[in-house]
Structures are given as structure tokens and as C-alpha cells.
């Protein structure tokens, strides 16, 4: 009989990673893996709920009942995504309360894209088309991420984001085929959202210390620059189709690499926004903190009522 070789927990973990076997909540995992996932999943969840704010901003002013319904449905989906993702993160031993406390204190981040304001109806189209488009590009590989609950949550999230992206493109198409004022609105929104969207893929690979470890653990499947390149290559033809001008004077097709060369991202702006100096950073967090604090009495009441009800039920059983 073959001697059973006692493998280390580390080796078992690495073997599963290598063999594309999902890591599940009950499995052992390196502490750093756990931390990376909590950070990443909670940031994703935070992004969904903070992301409700710039889009929710236009629900009451949506220009038709159909568009109002679609936007309301989308914002509702974002709340749902937040719920899935907080639940997925909780399987790693943290709590929603802790994650939300981290968001409010500034310790945890959310996607910087949501620190930009939505200044016209066309922004809703641009967000759906560009921001959800970038989100999908970031997220689709996560369907194959090594952590099971995250991967399964992403299946549903990606399906809905894909729908959202199509709806955003549809808004842009309607505007670009509309009156001059609508086309102008679309171009202006495109101008404001293009570069911040490219920033969504994160810093250059040369300045992304976490990437290597995350890719080794198959939390990430592609580098930031790889995804950014693919995004540009996909969006530029769509912009051309819409008749929109990409706000990048350095954009140019590179036959050799079969892709576009594009201008330098304004990394100073990127880091400013990451550090809290974006146009809406203070506003978004203030809104979340306000909702949380003003809702404290509601949560307390729900808890108190549940306890009263449980007590009454217990008393009935005894009686």
C-alpha cells in the first residue's frame, strides 16, 4: 500500500488553484488570500451600492416612462448585486456591518468611477455603455475566479450587467440618431466618461503590486493593461458606429499589434480620485453615511420587534 503523504494545507490549496478546483468557504486558505478576497469582494459590493447614487440621480428626471422603468430596474439590480456580494464576502468570515463601517470610515474603497457626477441624461447612456462595459470586462473573468461563492455570484451579476450595457448603448444610439441637441449631449457625456472609464482598469501593470499574487491565485485572470487594451479595441469601433469622436488625440490604429494605441491616462487625476479628491468623493460617502445614520432607528426597531416576537412565540410554547 502506498504511504499516504501528508500534504500541507498550503499544498492542498495550491493544488486546487492549479487544477481549477474552486475554493469553498469551509476550505483552508492562506490568510492573505482571504484578505485579498474580502477587500476585492467588499469593494465590488460597495461599488454596486455607491453606484446606485449617480444613476439614481436621474430616475426622477428620466425623459420617458420607458427609460424611467429601465433605469429604476437597473438601480434595483445594483442593490441586488450589492446583496449577493456582501453575502459572498460574509462567507469569508467578515460581516456586512464591518464592511459598511470600513466604507464609511474610508478604509475600504469603491470603484472611483462613481466619484464623477451624472450631469445629463446622456450620462446614463454613457455609464451603461462604457462603465458597465468596463465592469463586464473586469468581471467576466471573475466567473472563473478561484473562490466559489464569488464566482457563482458573478455569473448572475455579469448576466445583468450585460443587459445594462446594451440598454446604455441603446440610449446612446437613440441620442446619436436624434436631434442636434441630443447628439451634443451624447458627445459631451462621452467626453466626460471616456478617460475615467479607462481608469477603472486600475494603474498600469508596472504599478500594480497586487496583480501578480492575485493572478497566481487566479483571483485575477488578466492584467490591468491587457483588459484596458481590449476595452479600447472594443469601444472605439462602437463610438465610430455612433458617430462620436473619441476624446483622445493620440488614438491611432496600430497594425502591428492589431489594436489601438491610445493616449496617456491622467494618472495624477486617477490618484487624486483614489485619495478622495474626486468631484463627488465627499458627496457619495456623506450620502451613504447619512442614509446609514438616519436609518439606525429603523434597524434597531426591526431587531427589537424580532426579539419581542421571538419572546412571544417562546412564551406560547411554554404555555
Amino acid at each position: 500500500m502506498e504511504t499516504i503523504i501528508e500534504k500541507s494545507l498550503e499544498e492542498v490549496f495550491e493544488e486546487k488553484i492549479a487544477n481549477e478546483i474552486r475554493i469553498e468557504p469551509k476550505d483552508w486558505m492562506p490568510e492573505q488570500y482571504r484578505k485579498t478576497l474580502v477587500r476585492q469582494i467588499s469593494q465590488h459590493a460597495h461599488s454596486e451600492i455607491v453606484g446606485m447614487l449617480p444613476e439614481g440621480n436621474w430616475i426622477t428626471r428620466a425623459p420617458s416612462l420607458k427609460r424611467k422603468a429601465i433605469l429604476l430596474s437597473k438601480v434595483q439590480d445594483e442593490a441586488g448585486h450589492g446583496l449577493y456580494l456582501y453575502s459572498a464576502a460574509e462567507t469569508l468570515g467578515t460581516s456586512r456591518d464591518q464592511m459598511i463601517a470600513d466604507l464609511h470610515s474610508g478604509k475600504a474603497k469603491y470603484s472611483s468611477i462613481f466619484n464623477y457626477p451624472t450631469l445629463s441624461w446622456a450620462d446614463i447612456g454613457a455609464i451603461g455603455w462604457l462603465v458597465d462595459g468596463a465592469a463586464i470586462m473586469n468581471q467576466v473573468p471573475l466567473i472563473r475566479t478561484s473562490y466559489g461563492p464569488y464566482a457563482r455570484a458573478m455569473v448572475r451579476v455579469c448576466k445583468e450587467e450585460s443587459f445594462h450595457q446594451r440598454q446604455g448603448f441603446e440610449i446612446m444610439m437613440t441620442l446619436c440618431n436624434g436631434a442636434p441637441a441630443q447628439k451634443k449631449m451624447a458627445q459631451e457625456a462621452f467626453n466626460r466618461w471616456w478617460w475615467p472609464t479607462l481608469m477603472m482598469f486600475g494603474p498600469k501593470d508596472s504599478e500594480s503590486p497586487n496583480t501578480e499574487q492575485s493572478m497566481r491565485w487566479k483571483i485575477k485572470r488578466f492584467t490591468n493593461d491587457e483588459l484596458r487594451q481590449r476595452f479600447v479595441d472594443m469601444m472605439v469601433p462602437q463610438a465610430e458606429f455612433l458617430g462620436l469622436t473619441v476624446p483622445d488625440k493620440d488614438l491611432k490604429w496600430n497594425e502591428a499589434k492589431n489594436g489601438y494605441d491610445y493616449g496617456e491616462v491622467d494618472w495624477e487625476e486617477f490618484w487624486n480620485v483614489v485619495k478622495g479628491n474626486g468631484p463627488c468623493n465627499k458627496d457619495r460617502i456623506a450620502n451613504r453615511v447619512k442614509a446609514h445614520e438616519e436609518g439606525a432607528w429603523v434597524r434597531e426597531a426591526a431587531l427589537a420587534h424580532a426579539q419581542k416576537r421571538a419572546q412571544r412565540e417562546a412564551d406560547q410554547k411554554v404555555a
Partner: protein
Amino acid sequence: MLLDYTLQLADTSLILGHRLSEWCGHGPILEQDLAMANIALDLLGETRSLYQYAAELEGQGRTEDDLAYLRDAVEYKNPLLVEQPNGDFADTILRQFLFDGFHFQLLQQLQQSPEQRLAAIATKSFKEASYHLKWSSEWVIRLGDGTEESKRRIKKAINNLWMYSGELFMMTETEKQLAQAGYIPEYAPLLQNWEAHVKKVFAEATLEVPQNVFMHKGGKTGRHTEQLGYILAELQYLQRAHPGLEW
């Protein structure tokens, strides 16, 4: 007359849905953010069906959007209750509860209307209204039978909003004639059922049902509160600023 009534129903669900949608991203609990968005969406679906039907009844080429976005406040027929501000979560819950109780009763009976289009819309929306009433009733109970703070707030909400509940069951001339013709139900039995439900929920919530409160009216005949003007300024802005465009 049928057009008038259909517009009244559509205006009502549009404005209440609008108020609920103001909560998006600002709720006290993520699940309730989602629930309110869900109810707003349900109401918007009902709204669209009703405006589309109203546009057909009118037969002058106007669309659902024309009816929502291009009518002035004085032409709106929603009752005063639904245009009241969100206030805090207790005000929102109480406004929803008072309306859901009426909505549930009305849709339940409207399913039997010989006016088949209204009956179909009522049938489609009744299931949603049932869920809405369950949700708002449970929250009234949680708040009334929660903490002292939540009880104080729900009682304040009752004090703010009860005076608008009566109008739901007051019939305009249009409603009277439609009821007489058998197109819509009489409201007296609906009120009785509504009162019974409120009494039951309030008892469980350890809340008193108000007595002898003067009931305000006017919304159904175009005399609103000062609130509606601001709602419409926001709601209608884009279609007013850029008229005649496709969005």
C-alpha cells in the same frame, strides 16, 4: 369619463412611484432600498399600462409620455396622499400602508370590471399590490412594536398623513357615475375592508386608530398641495426643455 378615471389611476401610481424612487440609494437597509425600488417599478408598470390605455381612449394621438410629461399640475388627478413628501422612513411606510390598503381593495374588485382593459390591468397589478400591502403592513407592525423611538416616529407619521387617507375613498362625480354604471366598484365596502385591515395591523403594532380626523380632499379634481408643482418640475424637465424628441 372612463378617460378621466384612467388618468386618475395613472397619475396616482406615477406620483407614488416617483416618491418611492427618490429613496434609491438612500434607504435605511439595503434590502429596503431594493424593496422600495421594486414597488416603484411595479407602480410604474401599472402607470404605463394605464396611460397607454388613456391615450387610446382619448384617441388624439397623444402617447403615454405626453400624458405624464406634458400636463400641468392642475390637470393631474392623483389624491393628495401620494404626493406627500417621503419624510423619514416612518412617513414613507405609513403613506405606503394607507395607499396599499386602498390599492389592494380597489384592484381586487376592478378585476371583475366589465371594462375589460381595466380588469386586465387590475389583474396584472393585483398580485403586486398584495405584496406591497404585506410589506408595508409588516413595517407598520415592526415600527409600532419596535422601539420607543420607532413608535414615536410612526405615531408622528400617522399624525402627518391620516388626514389624506379619506380622499382615497371619496368618490368624484366621475367615480360615482362609473360605479353606478357598474364599471368600477362602490367604495363603501372597500372602506370597510380597509378599516378592518388597518385596525388589525394597528392592533398588532400597538397603535391607536385615529378618530374624527378632518379629511382633506382636492387632488382628484386638480386641487393639489404645493408639493406636486415641485415633483412635476423635476419629473417633466427634460421633455419640457427638449420637446418633441425621441429618448
